[in-house]
């Protein structure tokens, strides 16, 4: 409900001309996406801790305040509930807030606002007060950070009615999914895989349309087993697929992208081809998103499945310290074991 005409500095209105694809890190791709969002959507505002002058602790908002002004890209006091609660009010005033929570573990202090307010305001107000908020959360482990600086909250957020959850796996996905998310009238939790921030990849700008931005994505086709992953685990699964090929096993890697809504059809289509599925995530096993994926696959592919869906996940322990991260995050061998189990399985 844009009740107001918002005069925003740095506004150009039109989407920039699509440039030739270029090599960018995910960090740079996200930065570019935010710049394009701010340039094309006068209601967009970026807020959070250290996002302005510093350009964010991961430099994702680098230079945006200089370009778009301190009104549209602003530092807040150090209080996550405040950042998200304020975003609710900004949305009610017609803005499209892009708040940042500096690290995944710091989303916990804001859970009340995320769950009880952002997730419900559209419902509570019967659609008159939508929440076009895209909450960026640097997510998952893999950088040997201190406690609470590496967490996997996707199951928690995906469980909340009213939220949508997405996690990109490449710079290209990061650019397009962020632009897509920011254009939605609903709240989106945007989980940035921080261990992938620095990996480069080809990024095409411009827009690729909802068909390109929605659902899952086959990151590598294969015919013997489907590895299902999102965020940072996609790259690891692609490595596994490469190794499995040495053993004559053709692994399909399905990048789920959207964790809510889950692409049930995409999942079913892949598993119908391969008849075996292994879901990989960093979060703890119990009540993790892998359980939901397994249920969806089982519901849809029970007859074609050659083996129960395997889950290769983190353990039911707190995210460990950096030195133990490699023991906790699914590694290549654990994923290979998972593949081996679904390949070996024989009925009866």
């Amino acid at each position: 409900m844009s009740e107001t005409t918002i005069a925003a500095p740095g506004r150009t209105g039109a989407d920039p001309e699509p440039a030739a694809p270029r090599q960018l890190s995910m960090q740079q791709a996200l930065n570019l996406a935010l710049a394009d969002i701010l340039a094309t959507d006068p209601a967009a505002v970026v807020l959070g801790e250290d996002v302005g002058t510093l350009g964010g602790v991961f430099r994702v908002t680098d230079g945006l305040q200089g370009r778009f002004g301190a009104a549209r890209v602003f530092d807040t006091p150090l209080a996550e509930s405040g950042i998200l609660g304020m975003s609710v009010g900004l949305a009610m005033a017609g803005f499209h807030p892009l708040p940042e929570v500096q690290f995944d573990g710091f989303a916990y202090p804001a859970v009340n606002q995320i769950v009880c307010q952002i997730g419900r305001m559209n419902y509570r107000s019967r659609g008159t007060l939508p929440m076009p908020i895209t909450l960026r959360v640097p997510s998952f482990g893999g950088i040997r950070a201190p406690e609470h600086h590496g967490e996997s909250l996707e199951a928690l957020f995906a469980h909340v009615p009213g939220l949508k959850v997405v996690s990109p796996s490449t710079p290209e996905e990061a650019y397009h999914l962020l632009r897509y998310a920011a254009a939605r009238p609903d709240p989106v939790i945007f989980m940035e895989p921080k261990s992938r921030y620095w990996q480069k990849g080809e990024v095409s700008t411009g827009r690729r349309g909802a068909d390109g931005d929605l659902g899952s994505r086959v990151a590598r086709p294969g015919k013997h087993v489907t590895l299902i992953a999102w965020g940072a685990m996609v790259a690891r699964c692609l490595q596994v697929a490469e190794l499995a090929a040495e053993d004559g096993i053709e692994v399909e890697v399905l990048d789920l992208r959207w964790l809510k809504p889950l692409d049930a059809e995409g999942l079913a289509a892949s598993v119908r081809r391969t008849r075996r599925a292994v879901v990989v995530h960093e979060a703890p096993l119990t009540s993790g998103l892998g359980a939901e994926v397994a249920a969806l696959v089982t519901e849809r592919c029970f007859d074609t499945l050659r083996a129960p869906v395997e889950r290769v996940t983190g353990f039911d322990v707190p995210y460990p310290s950096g030195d133990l991260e490699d023991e906790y995050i699914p590694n290549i061998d654990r994923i290979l074991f998972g593949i081996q189990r679904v390949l070996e399985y024989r009925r009866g």
Partner: protein
Amino acid sequence: MAELSFPLPDLGEGLIEATVLEWLVEPGEQVERNQPLVEVETTKSAVELPSPQAGKVLRTYGVPGAKVSVGEPLIVFEVADDAAGIVGTVPRDEAPKRRVRLTAVPDED
């Protein structure tokens, strides 16, 4: 890696140029923030400029005796464009290591 260029800063009081006296660093050298970079002399006084940036020196502008204008490039650093955030480390791309071999043969029917 990215290049980061710094111009001769405004030395105040309306001075528009300075003469390079001596470079205290040279290309290829790794410098710390605040480390002395160069001695320059203005019509007012001689000053030593501290480095605004940590990084590897790629290029310097102005041999001793040369004049450099305020705002013109003075030094270029090479800085890591994959610097970690405030915590943690940048994961290195490593060749995948494996111990497990897949032995099962999928039945093709």
